[in-house]
């Protein structure tokens, strides 16, 4: 008989091994799924996980990994602080949208001014937009005790409606023949977030994501703020005695994750996306939640998880066009990844014991 026994302390070894095991397990389960779809599982898994990095056209896919991974990492790093402290910002998608909107609005208002300061102003505005949107659930929780999970999630839908209204109204391209969507910011040199080295995919968003990872690492390991965050998550009562002010922690964590999500939105709208359009957001804010947990809420882990998630997107696209795999199969694979992680995670907290059945 198999028995689960709670470990007195979470296993360090397993907490590192779990994500790796989860990925391997996903490959196995995914392979079985693809085999059931009549595909050669080895070829599919290779296409998804290796082709973006090593195939004939990898020079094209690798930059795409950066473009896809950067917003995920940037948002997930922000979320990880709150998640560690038990503050659940589920609405990063909304903050991402508002950051993009506010940033783009600044850029469009200054059009056609030719100055690199335009971009700088947009970056500041983007971070501010995301921060302000996250402050709504933050302040409501602090002042009225509302649930930030619900409020931040609901605000995603508000943000989506606002996005549609802006793309159709105030931010619409006056030269767009009445069609929705703003001017293309990536074609406006003052505001464009282009590749820093052409063809590498290395835009300012990637740089920002890397900086965020380093800062988060330092903050968690060396700074009092990181200590407070960890303490508040592990032992809320002890945290109070240690001088953590819960209200302030909520506002800081919400604000930080909002600002980073807003930045991600701004870099996206000024670069790869180029335009404010009705359906500008493609779910980075939600996927980042998976990335944050897959990366163990640890900055370096998040970097790796973001890369892995980007890999499944890019590789999934290749598998679709080359192998005729349905899009839903790729989504399933991504879902399996989180599912496997949660399942394997049990081993971090529990010990598996094989015991003999005793006769009563």
């Amino acid at each position, binding site marked *: 008989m198999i028995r689960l026994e709670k470990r007195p302390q979470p296993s360090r070894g397993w907490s590192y091994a779990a994500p790796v095991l989860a990925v391997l397990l996903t490959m196995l389960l995914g392979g079985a799924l693809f085999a059931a779809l009549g595909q050669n599982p080895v070829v599919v898994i290779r296409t998804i996980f290796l082709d973006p990095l090593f195939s004939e056209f990898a020079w094209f896919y690798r930059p795409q990994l950066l473009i896809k991974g950067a917003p995920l990492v940037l948002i997930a790093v922000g979320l990880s602080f709150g998640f560690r402290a038990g503050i659940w910002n589920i609405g990063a998608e909304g903050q991402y949208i508002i950051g993009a909107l506010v940033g783009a609005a600044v850029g469009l208002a200054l059009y056609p001014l030719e100055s690199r300061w335009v971009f700088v102003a947009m970056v500041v505005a983007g971070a501010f937009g995301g921060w302000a949107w996250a402050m709504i659930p933050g302040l409501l929780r602090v002042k009225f005790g509302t649930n930030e999970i619900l409020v931040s999630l609901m605000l995603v839908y508000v943000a989506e409606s606002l996005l549609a*209204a802006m793309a159709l109204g105030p931010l619409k391209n006056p030269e767009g023949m009445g*069609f929705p969507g703003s001017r293309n910011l990536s074609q406006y040199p003052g505001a464009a977030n282009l590749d820093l080295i052409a*063809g590498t995919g290395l835009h300012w968003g990637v740089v920002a994501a890397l900086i965020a990872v380093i800062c988060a690492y330092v903050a968690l390991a060396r700074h009092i703020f990181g200590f407070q965050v960890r303490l508040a998550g592990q032992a809320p009562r002890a945290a109070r005695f240690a001088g953590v002010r819960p209200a302030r922690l909520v506002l800081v964590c919400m604000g930080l994750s909002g600002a980073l999500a807003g930045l991600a939105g701004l870099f996206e709208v000024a670069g*790869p996306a180029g335009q404010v359009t009705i*359906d500008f957001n493609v779910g980075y804010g939600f996927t980042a939640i998976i990335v944050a947990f897959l990366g163990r809420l640890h900055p370096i882990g998040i970097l790796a998880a973001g890369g892995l998630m980007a890999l499944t997107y890019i590789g999934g696209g290749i598998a*679709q*066009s080359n192998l005729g795999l*349905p*899009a839903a199969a790729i989504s399933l694979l991504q879902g399996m990844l989180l599912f496997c992680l949660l399942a394997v995670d049990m081993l971090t907290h529990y010990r598996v014991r094989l015991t003999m059945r005793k006769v009563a």
Partner: protein
Amino acid sequence: MIRRTLLASGVAAAALMAAGLPALAQDEPTKVGFVYVGPVGDGGWTFEHNQARLAVEEEFGDAVETVFVESVPEGPDAVRVLTDMALQGADLIFTTSFGYMDQTIEVASKFPDVKFEHATGFKTAPNVAAYNARFYEGRAVQGHIAGHVTESNIIGYIGSFPIPEVIQGINSAYLAAKAVNPDVEFKIVWAYTWFDPAKEAESANVLIEQGADVILQHTDSTAPQAAAQAAGNVYTFGQASDMAEYAPMPRVSSIIDNWAPYYIERTRAVIDGTWETQSVWQGIADGMVGIGEITDAVPAEVKVTAEAIRDGIVAGTMHPFTGPINKQDGSVWLAEGETADDETLLGMNFYVEGIEGDIPQ
């Protein structure tokens, strides 16, 4: 291994490669790519594009290989998917949603030897053609039926996005309904999606609660049909595909997109080397827009007059936008006997007189 080093030198090489590929691939099948905005099982828009892809495969057999990617978001992801297809040796790529327009033009500029066909947009290039269907012609038939069968005189309309193509449909349906029923009133809900069964069902239910007993939709799922069926006694029309599984009620007719003839024609042009850029807008007469069977739930005499409208459009004796028509603000748009020109229709951003509410902007 000269080719490898060439590849390594980046994007410039991409163009070179693309230029070299079709020449190298003389004996290989012509590769035709399709980029879809929804899943192939949406039962509407993407479903019909995929049917047309299958028709291309059937027509040419081994001479043509098709590939497709579904549910591609209209943004940077489309650039990646398109570039990927071009790199993998596609000779012709159909991008089947309005939102792929800028991305198609962008990728096409990097692959001058690959032909692109963009649906429902207005931008073309030497290797990018645009094609669209005159859906508003079918809307006139729907509006006519709707005006006759409504008892509450309230007709609900689920709009996707307030772009000219959708506005054309609303105006066309309204004019046809008004012509047979002066008391008719349109209630319009904007879903801001092409395909989202949950949102579409919600929109349909809102309209039904507001008293609508006919629902027209410019979104692609069958969720409004299901909602109408649940409510009972509400008429709907199939959108993009026939949606015959909901016939005879609530689905009483439909607009069917038939892309197959066009896709076959353009694929043949690529094989023959006669492909040239163009911008076409085809209607019922060309077969790109079909009117699904009008069921017995519609009174026989209405069926006859509805089919007369269809036949009139095919014969060219009837145009859904024939004056006198005023704009919503009361100003004159078309004088007596005048018909709308394509340019105005393609940029249509106003309601005709009688429709209440504002176009979101």
